[in-house]
């Protein structure tokens, strides 16, 4: 019988090495699983177990919201509903200094609530807003920063495919984790607005004001009712349905997607092409995630079965550090991993270790899940390899350097860190709404 650190080293080590060589993440997990199952689960029988586990993991109804949330977001994007809502908010704000930065945060928050995917919303906002803001004389950080920030909001404010996946992996209540993200997500959006206000106060030149056609109150009201309320009401109804017990998360996701589809029909955004693009987009991300999930069941079982997780947990708790210190250590590990790994792999690697540890430390699992999502959100935009930084590089004007993007990201990373501190001090921010 191998010692726990031997088992841990073998399992984590082989995954890390394989990922570093550029092997697709799903295959790296499967390869490490094959190795681990062979060693710890009795040779060939262990490999059969791997397939049986994959079968069990994939035929679980808890995973259903993921493709449906993604579909919802893609439909919102491809049928033009997103752009419509955005333009409306832009016109409503009128002549506020730094207006376009606010539009990005407000519109982006609205958009990220509807889109399950941070990458989708970053790509949309980046291609929509950055050129426009450039043309209006905005400095780069005033356009790129808010977009990076709100892109990450998508994984906290429901619907969120990543939150569903985390809840499934950690075996916590999917609905509770989704609902727990509402209040902190809105607080974070508020902090972003505050950041922009401060940035404009310090350097008014960063966001020059310009004339826009005035609108009467009636016009504004009409715009709100036509182009903002219907879109947001889909999100509000699905979340309220979950809180009120009318919908399970899966049902909320299905009706959310249906709602967007109906709305797109009313506004004339449905075409064969937009439908096909939406399904293909949702399918790609779903397949990518599910194939990783396929290997995840076995990976976390190998961690438990070989004694690696319990060994590590015993070792870590043996130092008798305070729960907050332990939390910060875990948070730090997530940030470091986030610098070179994508979110799903980080969750798969850390959930089997962190959740037993969090339980041991007496944390509420839903609260801890939300803190973990925040860490992932931050790591999304952490230099040098945060995923959203590259997405942004892809859609921003060609003269944008990585350095521009990095500097723009920092104040918004600061906001997220502040929110983590708030959550540690006042856990009720997350736990009040799900009633825990």
């Amino acid at each position, binding site marked *: 019988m191998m010692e726990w650190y031997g088992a841990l080293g073998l399992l984590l080590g082989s995954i890390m090495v394989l990922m570093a060589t550029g092997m697709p993440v799903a295959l790296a997990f499967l390869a490490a699983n094959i190795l681990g199952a062979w060693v710890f689960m009795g040779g060939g029988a262990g490999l059969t*177990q791997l397939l049986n*586990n994959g079968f069990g993991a994939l035929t679980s109804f808890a995973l259903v919201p993921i493709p449906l949330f993604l579909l919802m977001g893609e439909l919102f994007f491809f049928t033009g509903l997103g752009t419509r809502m955005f333009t409306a908010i832009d016109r409503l704000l009128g002549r506020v200094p730094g207006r376009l930065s606010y539009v990005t945060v407000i519109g982006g928050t609205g958009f990220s609530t509807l889109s399950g995917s941070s990458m989708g919303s970053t790509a949309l906002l980046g291609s929509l807003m950055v050129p426009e803001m450039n043309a209006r004389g905005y400095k780069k950080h005033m356009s790129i920063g808010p977009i990076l920030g709100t892109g990450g909001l998508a994984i906290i404010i429901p619907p969120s495919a990543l939150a569903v996946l985390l809840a499934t992996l950690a075996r916590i209540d999917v609905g509770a984790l989704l609902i727990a993200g509402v209040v902190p997500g809105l607080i974070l959006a508020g902090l972003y607005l505050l950041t922009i206000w401060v940035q404009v106060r310090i350097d008014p030149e960063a966001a020059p004001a310009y004339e826009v056609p005035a609108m009467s109150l009636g016009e504004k009201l009409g715009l709100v009712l036509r182009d903002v309320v219907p879109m947001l009401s889909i999100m509000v109804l699905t979340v309220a349905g979950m809180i009120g017990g009318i919908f*399970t998360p899966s049902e909320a996701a299905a009706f959310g997607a249906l709602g967007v589809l109906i709305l797109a029909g009313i506004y004339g955004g449905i075409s064969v092409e937009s439908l096909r693009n939406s399904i293909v987009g949702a399918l790609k991300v779903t397949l990518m995630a599910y194939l990783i999930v396929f290997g995840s069941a076995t990976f976390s079982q190998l961690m438990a079965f070989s004694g690696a997780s319990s060994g590590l947990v015993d070792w870590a708790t043996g130092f008798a550090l305070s729960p907050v210190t332990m939390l910060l250590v875990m948070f730090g590990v997530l940030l470091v991993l986030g610098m070179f790994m994508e979110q799903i792999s980080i969750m798969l690697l850390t959930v089997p270790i962190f959740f037993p540890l969090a339980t041991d430390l007496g944390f509420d699992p839903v609260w801890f899940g939300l803190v973990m999502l925040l860490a992932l959100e931050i790591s999304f935009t952490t230099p040098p390899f945060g995923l959203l930084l590259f997405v942004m590089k892809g859609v921003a004007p060609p003269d944008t350097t990585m350095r521009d993007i990095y500097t723009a990201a920092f104040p918004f990373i600061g906001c997220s860190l502040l929110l983590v501190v708030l959550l540690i001090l006042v856990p009720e921010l997350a736990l009040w709404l799900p009633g825990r």
Partner: protein
Amino acid sequence: QDTLTAVHAFPESLIYTQSFLEFVDKVNERGEGVIEINVRGGPEAIGMFQQPDAVRNGVVDMVYTPGSFYAGSLPEKDALVASNLTAIETRENGGIELIDQIHQEKMGVKYLGWFDSGVCYNLWTRNEPELDEGGNLDVSGLKLRGNAVYNAFFTEYLGAQVIDLPTTDVYSALERGVVDATGWTQIGLIDLKWNEFLNYRIEPCFFSTDLGVIVNLDTWEGLSEEAQTILQEVAIEHEQSSVEALRTKRDEDFAALEEQGMEVVTLEGEAAADYLAAAREKTWERMQGLMEEQPGGTENYDRLIELFYDPAADPQ
């Protein structure tokens, strides 16, 4: 010294797992130097529903699981589900021996013992259950949580609108009102905290738990004779002592629940008899149907029923 690896289907906190761990302790104590059971964990180590395959394939040597988790391979487990006897009587009358033999033939595993038997299931509801003129339970207004074990009875006999949920999802489903009634064993409601939402227990109780220890047959046959003897003896002792222990626990749980305001609604006379007969017969029907499709057919059907059901043991 022989060493066996083991996993259990339910999380460590559940009473049934505690009972299994007690058994393991007894074996390790009595078998010192001869046999040792090394418990690797619960559903986090091997998935709940993958455990039966894991023990068949030799990934792990021993598993403590409800037979219902491998119903697809061994429909005969329904004889235990529909039983009104305990392991004590069925060990005596040869019932468990027959079940062991079927396990060896159909799954290549040794059935070591039926633990925690003598515990039956109640229907638990949030609102006061309604009875029709005949005193029968009226389920039309209930949002009843079901699963593969219950449904033959719930949907076919009671005609209920069943929502299938795994155990782990029931708490939040009750909390949000997705379901307002569920079946569960007499024990364990408090551990699961479902008593926060459920206010009525419907008697009589039906079914029986079907938790047992299965051991990979090759592993079993490779054990020294002494190790086999110790395992089998301790298992038979635990079959008996767990019946007693769980009955005590049940009485404690019932008392604690009643103190918190849990009310008991009892079906009377013919209504009760019909209710119990339906639970039993729908389950037997399912067992017979599935046995027909398997090699060996229904050869053991009558004998299983004879050994696991004693009309005289029904409440009169």
